[in-house]
C-alpha cells in the first residue's frame, strides 16, 4: 500500500471521527426534552397545531398552557422563546407555568414559540448547547437554541425574503426568524405557518393583549425596554413609569410603522389585541465579550462590557454585579404583572389578575428556588418541552 493510500485512510478515519462526534452532539440537542411541571394555576394544555392542524407532527408544533380563573375578564398571551438564543424569555415562561395563578380572566403561555429554533445552535456561534440552573433537588436544564428556525426544518433561504402580506423585502435569513413572519399565512413557509397559527390562537381565544419575551445586547439601543405600537403606548408608559419608580429602570420604544413582520407591529394591525415586546438586557448576546459560556448566560458578568460601560458605550446600566438570569427573567414577569395592573386601571370592566413570583423574589432566592422537582409530582403534571 502506498503512502498516499495510507494517508487517505487516516484522513477518512479523522473525517469519520469528526462526523460522529459532531453528529452525536447535534442529535443530542435536537432530541433533548426539557421537563416542565404544570403548576397549580394551569387548567389545561394543548398544542399550537390545534389552531393550524398542518403543523401537527412538525418540529414547529409546540405546547400551549392555559390558566382559566373561571371568572370573566381579559385574556393575555405570553410568548417565550421567539428567539431561543435569548433564554430569559423561555425561563420566564417556564416559571410562569410552574408558579403563576390567575384569579380573574385567562392567561395563555407558550414557552417555546420557536421550538424548531431551540433544537440547533447558531453556526459558528461557539456557545454551549445547554444551560443548567441549580435547584434544591438538582438542576433544571434548558436547550440553548438559535435565533432562527432550524435549517433542517426550513431550507433553503431565499435570495430575498418578501414579507407577507406587505411585500416588504427583508434579509433572506429572516424568512426563518419567527419575529419577521407575523401575521403569517397557512400555506406559506414553516415560519409563516407558525405566525398564522399564533394569529388564529389570538383570534379564536379572543386574546386582549400579547407579551413577546426577548433579550437584547447592551450595545444595542433597543434594550431594557418595552416595544409597542401606538395603541399599546399608554399602558406601556404607565407600567414603565411605575416600575422605574419602584423596581428597575425600563423605558418604552415605539414600534416603527414601516418595519413589517414583527410581533409588536403585526399583531396589533391584524387583530384587536394589544402587543408588547419586552427586551431584557442580555450580555451574552453582545459581540465584544469574553468566551460565550454558560456562566456568562446565567450571571451576565463580563469584563469587556464593564470596560465599555465605564466609557459610556452601553445603552443600559452595567456594573460588576452583571445582569443575572434572576434579573432578566424576573424583569419579564414583573413587567407582565405591571402591564396587567395598568390594563385593569384602563379597562376595569374586563380585568385580569395574575400572581407570580417575579424580580424581587428571584433576586432574593434565585430562579432555581422556583422550579419544582419533577420526581415529586404526579405524571399528569409533567410536560416535556
Amino acid at each position, binding site marked *: 500500500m502506498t503512502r*498516499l493510500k495510507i*494517508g*487517505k485512510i487516516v*484522513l*477518512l478515519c479523522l*473525517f469519520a471521527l*469528526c*462526523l460522529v462526534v*459532531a*453528529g452525536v452532539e*447535534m*442529535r443530542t440537542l435536537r432530541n433533548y426534552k426539557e421537563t416542565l411541571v404544570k403548576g397549580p394555576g394551569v387548567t389545561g394544555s394543548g398544542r399550537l397545531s390545534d389552531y393550524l392542524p398542518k403543523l401537527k407532527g412538525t418540529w414547529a408544533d409546540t405546547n400551549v398552557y392555559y390558566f382559566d380563573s373561571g371568572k370573566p375578564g381579559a385574556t393575555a398571551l405570553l410568548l417565550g422563546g421567539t428567539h431561543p438564543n435569548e433564554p430569559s424569555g423561555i425561563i420566564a415562561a417556564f416559571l410562569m407555568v410552574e408558579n403563576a395563578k390567575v384569579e380573574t380572566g385567562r392567561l395563555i403561555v407558550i414557552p417555546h414559540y420557536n421550538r424548531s429554533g431551540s433544537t*440547533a445552535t447558531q*453556526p459558528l456561534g461557539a456557545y454551549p448547547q445547554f444551560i443548567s440552573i441549580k435547584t434544591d433537588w438538582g438542576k433544571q436544564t434548558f436547550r440553548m437554541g438559535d435565533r432562527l428556525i432550524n*435549517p*433542517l426544518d*426550513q*431550507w*433553503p433561504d431565499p435570495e430575498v425574503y418578501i414579507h407577507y402580506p406587505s411585500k416588504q423585502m427583508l434579509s433572506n435569513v429572516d424568512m426563518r426568524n419567527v419575529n419577521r413572519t407575523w401575521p403569517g399565512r397557512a400555506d406559506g*413557509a414553516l415560519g409563516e405557518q407558525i405566525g398564522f397559527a399564533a394569529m388564529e390562537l389570538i383570534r379564536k381565544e379572543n386574546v386582549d393583549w400579547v407579551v413577546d419575551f426577548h433579550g437584547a445586547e447592551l450595545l444595542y439601543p433597543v434594550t431594557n425596554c418595552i416595544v409597542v405600537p401606538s395603541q399599546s403606548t399608554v399602558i406601556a408608559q404607565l407600567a414603565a413609569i411605575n416600575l422605574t419608580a419602584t423596581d428597575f429602570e425600563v423605558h418604552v420604544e415605539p414600534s416603527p410603522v414601516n418595519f413589517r413582520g414583527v410581533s409588536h407591529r403585526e399583531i396589533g394591525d391584524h387583530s384587536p389585541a394589544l402587543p408588547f415586546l419586552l427586551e431584557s438586557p442580555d450580555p451574552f448576546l453582545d459581540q465584544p465579550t469574553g468566551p460565550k459560556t454558560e456562566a456568562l448566560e446565567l450571571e451576565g458578568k463580563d469584563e469587556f462590557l464593564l470596560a465599555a460601560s465605564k466609557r459610556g458605550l452601553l445603552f443600559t446600566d452595567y456594573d460588576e454585579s452583571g445582569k443575572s438570569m434572576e434579573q432578566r427573567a424576573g424583569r419579564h414577569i414583573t413587567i407582565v404583572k405591571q402591564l396587567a395592573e395598568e390594563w385593569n386601571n384602563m379597562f376595569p370592566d374586563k380585568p385580569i389578575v395574575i400572581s407570580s413570583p417575579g424580580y424581587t423574589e428571584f433576586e432574593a432566592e434565585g430562579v432555581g428556588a422556583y422550579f419544582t422537582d419533577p420526581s415529586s409530582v404526579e405524571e399528569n403534571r409533567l410536560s416535556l418541552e
Partner: protein
Amino acid sequence: MAFVITTVYYALCVYAITFLAINFVKTKDWQKATLQLIVMLPFLLRVLRLK
C-alpha cells in the same frame, strides 16, 4: 413548492458529495484530499439531517 425546492437542494447536496468523493479517491495530492473532506462535511451533515 417549498417541498420541491427543498428536495432539489438535498439532491444538489448529494451531487456535491458524490463528486467530492470521486475527487478524493482520484487525487494524488494529500492536501487536495484533505480539502475535499473538509468541504464535504457540511454537505454530509445536511443530507444526514444532523445540522
